[in-house]
């Protein structure tokens, strides 16, 4: 038996991905709507960055129970404090949401001290590792900027791909990317984890990687449309099969490096790493199953003519004897 070369994906696969394209398309619509519903209904557990307020990261000498701390905070009159473990079992993140209109953070040092004294017990004292306080205006601006950033990225993709490929590819690639981000956002919402700035960064870079995967497939589609005499479905199938091993290996290696981040990066990077891991998974699947089937839909149907050299070259051809 030959061990080398190692191949995860057998060479020359001929899987008919397009046969079930209606199923994939239906799944696309279904998941998209479901994701929107999850994000819309369940929403995110927004972190301080977006809500404003004060967060205190406390390290205890021994592992503590989240519920006990919550009770102690309640009885100390610190209402609606959110308590969660952060990294190891000895570290807690205690978040006190600020008033809707809390503009400045003048009172927060006192609040942090109160939180610490309420959370500590004589036999298990805590120590403040870090505190954060954000006023409502800053968090409002952050929310606004997050939306601007997402729009900027999508428009950038649309323009660039229209320029390098064709508008149908651009629309489909952007749709796929939007789909990936929505699904990852919904999954993240379901985990109930804190949505902070790094998670936002994670979501935006998921857009980057997801489009990356899609572009590689489309690049091959373009090449094959020009070089092969075959109907579009056959071209799509071949392109997906040809890029399959690349798609899977890249995603695998990417997944591994993000896993390292998740395992060793500590509490504040967990959210980022988690979105990336989900993004790697969803992005890979969507570039295999979703992107090409979308290119067969109504106005988005791609034909050989779309990719043939444009009018200018035809004129040049016509001028030839």
């Amino acid at each position, binding site marked *: 038996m030959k061990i080398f070369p190692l191949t995860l994906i057998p060479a020359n696969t001929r899987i008919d991905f397009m046969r079930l394209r209606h199923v994939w398309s239906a799944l696309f619509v279904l998941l998209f709507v479901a994701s929107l519903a999850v994000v819309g209904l369940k929403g995110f557990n927004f972190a301080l960055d977006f809500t404003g307020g004060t967060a205190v990261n406390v390290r205890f000498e021994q592992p503590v129970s989240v519920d006990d701390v919550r009770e102690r905070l309640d009885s100390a009159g610190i209402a609606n404090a959110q308590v969660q473990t952060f990294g190891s079992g000895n570290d807690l993140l205690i978040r006190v949401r600020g008033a809707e209109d809390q503009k400045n953070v003048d009172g927060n040092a006192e609040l942090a001290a109160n939180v610490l004294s309420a959370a500590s017990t004589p036999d298990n004292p805590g120590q403040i590792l*870090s*505190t954060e306080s954000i*006023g409502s205006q800053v968090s409002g601006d952050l929310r606004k900027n997050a939306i601007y950033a997402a729009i900027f*990225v999508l428009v950038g993709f649309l323009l*660039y791909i229209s320029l390098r490929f064709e508008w149908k590819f651009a629309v489909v690639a952007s749709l796929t990317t939007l789909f990936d981000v929505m699904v990852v956002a919904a999954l993240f919402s379901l985990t109930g984890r804190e949505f902070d700035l790094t998670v936002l*960064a994670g979501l935006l870079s998921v857009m980057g990687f997801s*489009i990356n995967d899609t572009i590689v497939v489309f*690049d*091959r589609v373009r090449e094959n449309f020009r070089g092969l005499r075959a109907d579009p479905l056959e071209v799509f199938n071949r392109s997906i099969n040809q890029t399959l091993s690349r798609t899977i290996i890249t995603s695998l290696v990417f997944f*591994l490096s993000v896993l390292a981040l998740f395992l060793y990066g500590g509490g504040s990077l967990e959210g980022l790493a988690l979105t990336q891991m989900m993004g790697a998974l969803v992005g890979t699947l969507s570039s295999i199953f979703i992107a090409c089937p979308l290119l067969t839909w109504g106005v988005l149907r791609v034909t050989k003519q779309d990719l043939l050299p444009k009018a200018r070259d035809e004129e040049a051809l016509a001028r030839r004897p």
Partner: protein
Amino acid sequence: MLEFPRWKYALILVVLVLAALYALPNAYQKNPSVQITPSTSEARIDEALRQRVEVLLSEAGVTPIGTEIDDNHLLVRLHDADAQTVASDVLRPALGENYSVALNLASTVPQWLSDLGARPMSLGLDLQGGVHFVMQVDQAAALQKRVEGYADGIRTALRDARIGYSSVERRNDNTIGVVLVEGADVNAARARIIESLASASGQVVGGSGPQVLADGNRITVRLSQGEIDRIAADAVEQNRTVISNRINSIGVAEPVLQRQGEDRLVIQLPGLQDTAEAKRLIGATATLEFRAVTGDENQAAAAVASGSIPADSRVYYDQNERPLLLSRRVLVSGEQLINANPITDPETGMPAVIITINSAGGKRMLDHTLQNVGNRLGIVYVERIPTVRTVNGEEVRGSRSVERVISSSTIQGVFGREFRTTGLSREEANDLAQQLKAGALAAPMDFVEERVVGPSLGAENVERGLTAVLYAFAFTLVFFMLYYRMFGIVTCLALILNLLIVVAVMSLFGATMSLPGFAGLALSIGLSVDANVLINERIREELRAGMPPKAAIVTGYEKASDTIFDSNLTGIIAGVALYAFGTGPLQGFAVTLVIGIVASMFTAIVVSRALVTLIYAPRKKLKSLAI
């Protein structure tokens, strides 16, 4: 057919050497240290001070790595952070007010490297520990104050021209409404108003002037939008200058002060833990007012006792709660103050404070002192405490102010823009100068964000970040070597160079490394893999299609390059968006990501190809590839 231009090899060699050289400083550990700088003009940094510091430290049981004197500061290098804390706690009270003692991380990079401009990346607060503040400048208050100043100017101009008016008021929409008495010459008044605003408003610097509209005996003055914008922008800039003086006096080695967005200032104080003290110093939202003294302490006490305070005066109190009568008219306000420094008066040899104000303020001061030599001039320190009240269900933001007379010395002679205040002790002079400078904020500010990172958490974060990057790297390298064999080794070399380039570029541009930065680094490794996988898979594909090995290499690289370019450019678009709309840590993440992507295009397309050519080109009869 398998060949590669010589100049590209030369380019790779140059890049390799430069990258190694500029990444190198990061390998040197920094020493925790204490930096001593003089804070007054008499304090000297010399051998005597060094010996004094060494004696103090050995008494406290701290052995420094060494002490060194360079450009006017004394640096004490210590073995660890605990020794650093002990040392600063010992030195700060012992050295007294004349020196400021700051915590620092001293570089151990050898001189020859520093001479080349190579320096380590600076560590973000999340890796180093310290305090991060964001302050918001209240531009509306700045505007209001300036408009009130203009209204004041109009009153003076009309009075000087003997044009009767019944009121000159700032309205809520920041226009000034002037109501003249019956029969007054509206045109003359209008001309006077325009004249009085000419130097004050932005026309000198090219802006358009204010609109002055007359309607019957009413005149409305409306500032141009350009002027309003300029006042707002000036307010932020001026506050920034003031804050920069204040944070320099806190005693941290490398404070960061940046403008963020339109009206916010970011302050970072590495190594600091006590936020209360820092906030008190930075955030004293105070202003100053110079007012003529209209009645001394005895008269004031009498007026307070009888309850009959003269119409043009108000009662103020000094720090000892003694009353004093000051004019209602503000002569010069804090925003017109440019500088204040404690000096030794050259004529009397006594401590004094030298005060510099801007030209508009100087002119008024000149006018006032011409007529008031021998009278007293009061300086009032106004501290503003923000409040929020609820009126009819709506939040009303206001402020309560505390006013205190900090100086009321006699005017010795006629002066204008620059003058001295004497009759103070050395300590009082220092205090007054400090307060004057601290009071020169053009507009009130609020703390809107505060983050404190403990030093132990910082060290932990560095370790976590490094471990994560290391493992991400190790996973990738092992996978590649197993999966692609010879080409895998080439890819690994390219990836290592990639990492080196990213670190070198970031160090060279003085980027700040933060925890999200480490994440960006780990991700850019994951992403740079993509380019290499594309190439290697393409070569495998061409081989399977029956192409001879050398041709397969060439075709593989050429066909993959286009794809790499397209897919990476979209990644850069996402990075740019993150940078443009993100703040602080997000920008760090974005910068690392973008540099990583660009470096990976270079290493995958150029470097790995060069290596492959180097390995396979000399083989005449190449049957198969280890891929």
